């Protein structure tokens, strides 16, 4: 989309990573003796691989990165190949009158690679029909879901905005993960695209505001939603979030549609 919010988010996160890596590099050359702080992967790997090749785990990675093994299974020899891919957000195909839960299910469901999409199997040494599955291995701390509302239509020969009604709950679980427990998430922000076409329009966003500090784990009634529209900020009721689900009918006057959803992972066992 023109001045696409999703593209911008990608750019922002990647740029941040670059800057943080450069800073870290600079810090490293300043203090050769004390290596920069490494976070997630633990000291063992860092020592084994040496500090040079190890990618830096920044706060961007810590918050947004998830792991999505791209698993393929050759239909002929049944060899499973899994390649871990990292992601900062999930881009989901959407359907009319569906839910995020359903879109996520479709995303993780098994897909058959055939015809022109055949897989080159190393064992069979040839192109083979294969099955592909995307199952989240490591759920991120912040789950960013991008709804693919922009679709190229052959008929029109151009991009078109899908105004489909896709409902998103305030609380979500990822059950299709490799992890044992179901990862639970709470919606805290929504980027809304306003407009009927992909090449023009306007973005507004909804942000849930917390009481930070001692009351973080306190009940949600003390939270509220804020509506940001350029320089205007309004407090809105939680029930107003549902006005951004989309339109059940194709021709509708409602042009404000949820486009990027931000969910934050809840601690295991926390009641919400």
């Amino acid at each position, binding site marked *: 989309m023109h001045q696409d919010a999703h593209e911008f988010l990608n750019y922002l996160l990647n740029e941040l990573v670059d800057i943080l890596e450069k800073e870290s590099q600079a810090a490293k050359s300043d203090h050769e003796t004390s290596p920069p702080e490494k976070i997630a992967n633990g000291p063992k790997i860092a020592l084994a691989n040496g500090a040079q090749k190890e990618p830096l785990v920044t706060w961007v990675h810590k918050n947004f990165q998830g792991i999505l093994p791209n698993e393929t299974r050759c239909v002929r020899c049944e060899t499973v190949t899994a390649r871990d891919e990292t992601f900062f957000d999930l881009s989901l195909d959407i359907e009319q009158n569906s*839910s995020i839960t359903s879109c996520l299910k479709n995303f993780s469901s098994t897909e058959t690679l055939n015809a022109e999409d055949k897989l080159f199997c190393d064992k069979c040494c040839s192109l083979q029909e294969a099955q592909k599955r995307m199952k989240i291995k490591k759920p991120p701390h912040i789950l960013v879901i991008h709804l693919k509302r922009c679709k190229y239509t052959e008929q029109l020969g151009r991009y078109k905005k899908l105004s489909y009604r896709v409902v998103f*709950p*305030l609380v979500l679980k990822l059950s299709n993960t490799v992890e*044992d*427990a179901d990862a639970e998430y709470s919606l805290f922000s929504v980027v809304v695209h306003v407009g009927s076409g992909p090449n023009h329009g306007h973005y507004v966003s909804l942000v849930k505001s917390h009481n930070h500090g001692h009351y973080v784990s306190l009940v949600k009634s003390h939270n509220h939603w804020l509506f940001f529209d350029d320089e205007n900020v309004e407090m809105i009721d939680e029930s107003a979030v549902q006005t951004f689900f989309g339109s059940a009918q194709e021709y509708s006057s409602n042009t404000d549609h949820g486009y990027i959803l931000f969910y934050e992972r809840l601690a295991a066992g926390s009641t919400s």
Partner: protein
Amino acid sequence: MINNNNNINGSMSPSSTNAQSQGLKTYFKTPEGRYKLHCEKTHPAGLLPFAHGKSITQITLAHLKDKPAQAALPPSSSYSASSGVRFVAAKILGGGGNGGRALSFVGGNGTSKANGGTSRSGSLGGLNGSNSMVNSNFDGKGTYLIFNVGDTLYISDFNSQDKDPIKSIHFSISNPICHAFDSEAKDGHDLLIGLNTGDVYSVSLRQQLQDVGKKLVGAHHYNKDGSINNSRCTSISWIPEHDGAFVVAHADGNLYGYEKCKDGTGDSSFPVIKDQTQFTVAHAKSSKSNPTARWHICQGSINSIAFSTDGKYLATVGRDGYLRVFDYSNEQLICGGKSYYGALLCCAWSADGKYILTGGEDDLVQVWSMEDRKVVAWGEGHNSWVSGVAFDPYWSPPSSEDVGENVVYRFGSVGQDTQLLLWDLAMDEIVVPLRRCPPGGSPTFSNGSQSAHWDSVIPVGTLQPAPSMRDVPKLSPLVAHRVHSEPLSGLSFTQESVLTACQEGHVKFWMRPGQSESQPSNSDALLSSSLKEKTLLPGRVGGSSYKLSNSS
């Protein structure tokens, strides 16, 4: 038979019913045969009610019996504006807001006590100005479909093929959200209506049908201007076996008990709720007060309520994702549990009181067992939120081969994915998942709480946490059928049909297999015979001697 596909190239207006029917089949198949689209009911074509889309359509079926001999409705002359303070016609009320999502279905589940008359509301009179005309020749006997769209409550003749309603009641700037009907109401005030402003009315359905105006007539007004609670009414229900008593659930987590006979002159204030998370019951200080009690049930909205058929238990579901079951007269929490995730939007009892269905934002249909006090199955099949659930009390298993404990229940669900799903539940066939060692994950987390779902005995009065996905047996739907083009909001079963409603106010009647096309005109008789049958059944929760439609 209505031809549902006759307008493929019709208007593309979103409000148009032509657009409604695009690409939708007019039948669906089940093992017992075809269900066929018989007719549709909707608001008058081209005349969109004000605030259309601001509320979600709910449906109520109402069965009006013979008018009693000394029909106590007064002649029209006595209707001229009396200055009754509490008895007003649709009052102009402030506020907007979104509709509730719950479905309350109150069929005419009555005995044959014939008393539909209304001495009380008649003598008290209505306030409807001079334009009120009464068609006193019309006795109103029959079955009606009541549904709300925007600021209007519509009444359609259930037995007529006519798409348009026979009566529209406008509520000015407030919206009717929920309604309920009691065919046994002694003083004729049989219809309850809850508004988005918190206001509640009880009226005589017959009296509305006899009046040709567009306002509510002869209404008894409760929680006027939201003086006791100004949050949206989300669900309303008569209490079975308690004549004249009803409850209203609100969007702020409170539920109020009312008694029709109380005039409400006493002090109706209730103490401030100190802890929003605690269940508390407060009684009115004066015995004359109406409402008589306030139940604070949960934080956030109560989305739907349902009484067991004997009126002993009240089930509530809400924004916090919990199903709660109360012993109503003892004001005690019996059991309950949390959804997989997200809010619960609807709930319904089995006729024998053994199971409760819920549906919600996790796209699951949940089967709750009163005996086990836990979730016993999850129905997977909707691609969006589940907005309506109901057991089919008229369905019986096709063959009698497996007599005994294997009771099979039929139930249905509708969702925002525009689909109607039908399910069979045979408790013997439900496979309880085996306890598994966690696959590689953290062993400490899994062993304790998770699989305990099946092992532990649940004590009375406790709420269960959300079960893990792998701990609950899954059901698959028998049939999945896209019935409307808009998200669905309501589902009801009658003797001869299945009713589905969409959020925007279209209702479809699906004839059961084996029902001839001409039969619906006769449905009055069918319905009343089934009602008689129903009252003979000892459908008590405690008794457990009765099994639903256990092979015949």
